[in-house]
């Protein structure tokens, strides 16, 4: 390349083929713009207060909570892969370990950022640590998510320090070496934390005695949604990783991960999804026949308001549950890359729909017999900050992909992991 134009090739891992710097920038620009708008919108919400949103006294939670639950569910791939690789010693999944960490970091940091805008008094966020109410699912969520975000950062550091320039500093490289040796500990802690807060996020709604649509009986202090959320999260996490990797492959036009890794992920995802769907169906039956009637709410009430009719329940369980579960797990279909990926997409849609129903439909439905069914459309500020988080994710991922050895096993570069065999 000519020596006039600036080049960041020295920062790119040796031998890794990356787009030219100008092209990379031109790819980033639109995302940076979206991010900027999002930051501006978030600023409005922080400065003028939440009247900038379209939330109200009955729709106290809106788009943002849906976003939080959604991306945290999709980010579950991070801890689950770590769990599989380090705890269950499934070495074949190592190639997507790094990308899993990055995706996880993005999802969780994004969620926390949105939460900080979503609360009315962000300056008091730390009160939860000061006067925790141990009976509140939200306390559990706050504690676990903040801890797990820390864990994710720590898991990200080794990746960061392996950047070609940073690794030249002996202290960095040695620290990376030492930290990397301890990562299994972090993975174990992360697994614990994630199991808890994925569950607590489900519990968040399951405990709402005042909202019979969401309220569930459960086991000990945990409503059934606690376990359903864990299941659905670990079921779709791998699918989301597949989607991300596939997208990256499409964008970069490179084969980054061997097909067998994909198929393995698909299998895990499919099997877990099947288990989830089974559990979910049982739970739904119990809820329809016991839980809800016992507090005087006939189940048909919930589905007499358009657009939240029975089709939604069907879509959640069959279209986005059974179908992808089968496609992912069955060897014939799974061996076809296209089918595999679309099934993964279905699975992700499923978990998103589930979170949507639990957050939005719960609030839209009336409780008092003379309540009206509520509609709510997010304000542009809400949508913009939503988009901001997405853009933030893309940018962070792009940077990580360009400058860090995300796919250590990729044929083009060297790598710790190929040295293993």
């Amino acid at each position, binding site marked *: 390349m000519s020596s006039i134009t600036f080049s960041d090739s020295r920062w790119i891992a040796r031998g890794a083929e990356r787009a030219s710097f100008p092209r990379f920038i031109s790819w980033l620009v639109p995302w940076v713009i979206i991010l900027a708008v999002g930051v501006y919108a978030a600023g409005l919400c922080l400065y003028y207060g939440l009247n900038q949103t379209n939330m109200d006294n009955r729709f106290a939670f809106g788009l943002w909570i849906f976003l939080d639950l959604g991306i945290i569910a999709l980010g579950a791939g991070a801890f689950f892969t770590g769990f599989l690789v380090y705890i269950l010693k499934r070495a074949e999944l190592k190639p997507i370990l790094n990308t899993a960490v990055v995706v996880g970091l993005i999802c969780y940091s994004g969620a926390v950022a949105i939460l900080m805008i979503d609360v009315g*008094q962000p300056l008091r966020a730390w009160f939860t640590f000061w006067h925790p109410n141990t009976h509140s699912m939200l306390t559990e969520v706050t504690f676990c998510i903040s801890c797990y975000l820390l864990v994710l950062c720590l898991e990200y550091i080794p990746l960061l320090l392996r950047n070609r320039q940073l690794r030249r500093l002996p*202290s960095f490289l040695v620290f990376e070496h030492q930290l990397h040796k301890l990562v299994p500990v972090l993975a174990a802690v992360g697994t614990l934390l994630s199991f808890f807060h994925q569950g607590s996020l489900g519990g968040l709604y399951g405990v709402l005695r005042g909202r019979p649509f969401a309220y569930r009986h459960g086991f000990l202090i945990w409503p059934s949604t606690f376990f359903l959320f864990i299941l659905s999260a670990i079921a779709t996490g791998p699918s989301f990783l597949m989607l991300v990797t596939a997208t990256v492959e499409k964008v970069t036009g490179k084969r980054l991960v061997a097909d067998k890794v994909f198929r393995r992920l698909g299998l895990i995802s499919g099997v877990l999804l099947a288990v989830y769907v089974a559990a979910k169906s049982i739970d739904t039956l119990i809820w329809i026949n016991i839980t809800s009637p016992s507090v005087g709410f006939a189940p048909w009430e919930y589905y007499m308001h358009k657009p939240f009719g029975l089709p939604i329940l069907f879509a959640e369980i069959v279209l986005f549950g059974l179908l992808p579960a089968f496609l992912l797990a069955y060897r014939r279909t799974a061996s076809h890359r296209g089918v595999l990926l679309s099934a993964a997409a279905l699975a992700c849609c499923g978990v998103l729909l589930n979170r949507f129903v639990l957050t939005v439909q719960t609030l839209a439905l009336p409780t008092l017999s003379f309540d009206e069914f509520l509609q709510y459309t997010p304000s542009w500020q809400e949508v913009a900050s939503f988009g901001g988080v997405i853009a933030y994710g893309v940018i962070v991922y792009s940077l990580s992909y360009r400058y860090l050895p995300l796919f250590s096993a990729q044929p083009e570069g060297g790598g710790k992991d190929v040295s293993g065999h």
Partner: protein
Amino acid sequence: MKVSRRDLLVWSAGAAAGLMVTPVPWRVLDDVSIWSQNWPWIPQPARGPVDVKQSACTLCPKGCGLRVRVAGGFLVGVAGVASHPVTRGALCPLAFGAHQLNWHPQRLRTVLHRRSVSTWNAAQMAFTKACSEGPVVVIDGYPGRAASQVLESFAKNRRGEYRVVLSAETRALAPYERWTGVPAALLGYDVENAGTIVSFGAPLLDGWGAPGHFTRLWADRAAGMNDPQLRLIQVEPTLSRTASRAWQWVPVRNGSEAVLAAGIAGVLLEEHLVSARGPKPTLSLTAAGEQTGLGIDAIRGLARTIVARPPVVAIANDDSPEVAALNVVLGAVGARGGIVRRSRENKSYLAADTPISSARAVVIDSSVPWDFAPKTDAEVFRFAAWDGGSGSADWLLPAPGFLEEATDVPAAPELAVQSFALAPALTKAQHEVRSAALFLSGIDSALPTAEEIIHARCQQIFQSRVGMLCSREQTPVSRFAASQKLEEQLWAGAVWVGEPVGPPNLRCELKEWPTPSTSTRGEGWSSSWTAPVLPPLASKLVEESGLRQRAEGRLA
């Protein structure tokens, strides 16, 4: 020595770690929690000892008893007076926010001449000039007060007119004034003794009369009872608040209330359900049945129900003569539980809405509802505490606001007995204000002052030795040793209530069934509210809960 990147790193890490053991971060956290609790822009309530004073509401002619909390010379809260003989602790929803009215952005703070800022002197000069040039008409919205007397005598001295804007309840009594010769302002409904009340669209449970007077009576004698002592029958096209709570709701076609009245009267006379003799309605029952959309049987049934529990009185929301005539047929005029005369004195008023023939100047007291605009080309001097916006006057003169001047409070328009209370001023206006009475006595020094008149009124009550003085306990006037004592107690918030003028106290001449007249109806829940603005907290009722609609036209 040169600092390597590594040194910097180590140094900053150490600094960060070290900072944690200093009090700085914890102190900051602590402060944050305090900042986030009281930002400078969060208003802090007035400080100072709170003392509770009794007074009366002067915002409309119903004179509800008020218990006002005052802190540092400012009104900080309003509540009803449980011991009040008429309102019994009740207030209208608007009154509970009234203590904030004096700070309303639309408060009239300076003299305005044709909407441009002027001075009291200019106004005074303009008015004196006008007086010297021709007759003056003085319009009052709250007759019977000391101030009213001042206004009236000023008008008399100037060979001018004293006119009155009557409340909706009083206007509805106009037909009886025509037939009995007793001024409507001195008539009232003896609801305490009524057994059945047929309301023709009158919002009996929604701002009709003094709050708490009828509503409390209804609550105690009727609410939720299958066979109540007091039967409230609401004749109204739509399901109003009153209709929805009434013992029976009669949904008639819009505007056919009068027809129904005629129909009922017809049945009563035809089936001899009433002893009293009255004129026979010209309208046939079938016609009534059709026009009301109820059918003959329904009307017959209704007539029988009505007389099932006497005494019966019909209450109209307008000055419909048919409803009045029905009362005559029912024998409710001048009878117990019907329409009675409040006092023996005889005093009639000239209604304000009749065109003003010849006047050089018109003075409008601040008690006149803002939406009343005199039909005249004379120079209009309007007193008001709040500026309603429209240029209905040449001069706008800032009058005392809520509880900013001492005044007396005569009986509410629909009461069956006399009552008298005093409303001491509990706060001071933040700018120069004058009531119409004060302004006029400034022009004509011969006028008696309001204080003298109030004093005289107390004297008169003391000498008459009738009635009770109601505060926490009730004391017959006859028990009082001196007039001062009585007056003191009145200033302290006690209310004097007269005795009913024993029936029969009305003679009603009605030969034949009246012909319909152009009726004027009360506008609704806040119709008697005279100020052009609502207390800000009324937004809870209108915008924030949708519990009520703004009465169209007024209070915009």
